């Protein structure tokens, strides 16, 4: 899924670690780590929660790019 994100930068701006951000959005540290690595695309609910905590719009944090390889 061609979803890219800037979560790491936003988290750095907040000055919190992965576990603290996880607690802020009621999710695990592992999930935050997976999102940052691009290994997991969050649900709409989680993406909205993250955006709210980061005081940003969802599309500022998550970027969708059309998959060109898809025939």
């Amino acid at each position, binding site marked *: *899924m*061609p979803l890219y994100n800037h979560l790491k930068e936003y988290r750095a701006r907040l000055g919190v*670690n*992965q*576990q603290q951000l996880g607690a802020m959005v*009621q*999710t*695990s*540290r*592992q*999930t935050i*780590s*997976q*999102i940052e690595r691009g*290994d*997991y*695309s*969050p*649900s709409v609910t*989680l993406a909205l929660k993250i955006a709210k905590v980061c005081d940003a719009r969802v599309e500022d944090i998550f970027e969708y790019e059309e*998959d060109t*390889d*898809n025939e």
Partner: protein
Amino acid sequence: MSNKRVKERSNKRILITFILMIVVCGVIGYFFGMITAKSEKTQTFAQTVDVMKNVVIQSFPVLFMIVAVLSIIIPTIGYIHCNKMYQKLQADRDNDELWDRLENALNGPMITSTLFSIANVCLFLCFVYGAVTAKIDERYGKTVVLIGLAIFVISTVMGIVIPHLVVKIEKELNPEKKGNVLDSKFREVWMDSCDEAQQMMVYKSAYKAFSNTNVVCIWLIAITFVCAMLFKTDILSMIIVCLIWFINTFSYMLHAAKLERRG
């Protein structure tokens, strides 16, 4: 999440693969049958099978003890390694890279402990079977049988203790996680405390396990059938594999249908 998409294969390609598989299996079956028929006539085959069976049964105590001892040592080493990493992390809680490495390393003792537990039960039952039917205790002595029993008890206890300790570290790393390994409802409680990403991981792994089990069942049916014909192992093993395949597929389809109805 993987970016790879599985492409649909054309009917023509599937048909060609299927015909090729049938031809290859037919040729292998023909040669196998020919060799068996020739060797059965000379009686050397039946004697060889008997000798092989005897060697396998007599080697169970040694094999069981080696695996049982390894099942104690390997997961324990893995746990000690993880515990060291955990202590290191306590001093540097912001080290995300170390945290990820520890989470990954925790899989080691958990996987080895679980796999060894299964191997232990299997080999212990073979050991007991050998002791009863082939009088292993007469060859190795009663002391060896008692030592084997003691090792089995120790390895079984370790098979519970190591996962318990790993889960304890996991729960300390992720306080939202719930569940006690000793509880029969551990999986349900643990799953309930997992968030969406972890639940997705479990679903994907379960689907992969389901697919792999189906493939393995097909191979095992072929193998058990060949063994029944060649080594006279009876058809019970083949029926049991078919039963496992049936239950695996049926429970998957039943739950999928239930979920579909729920919408």
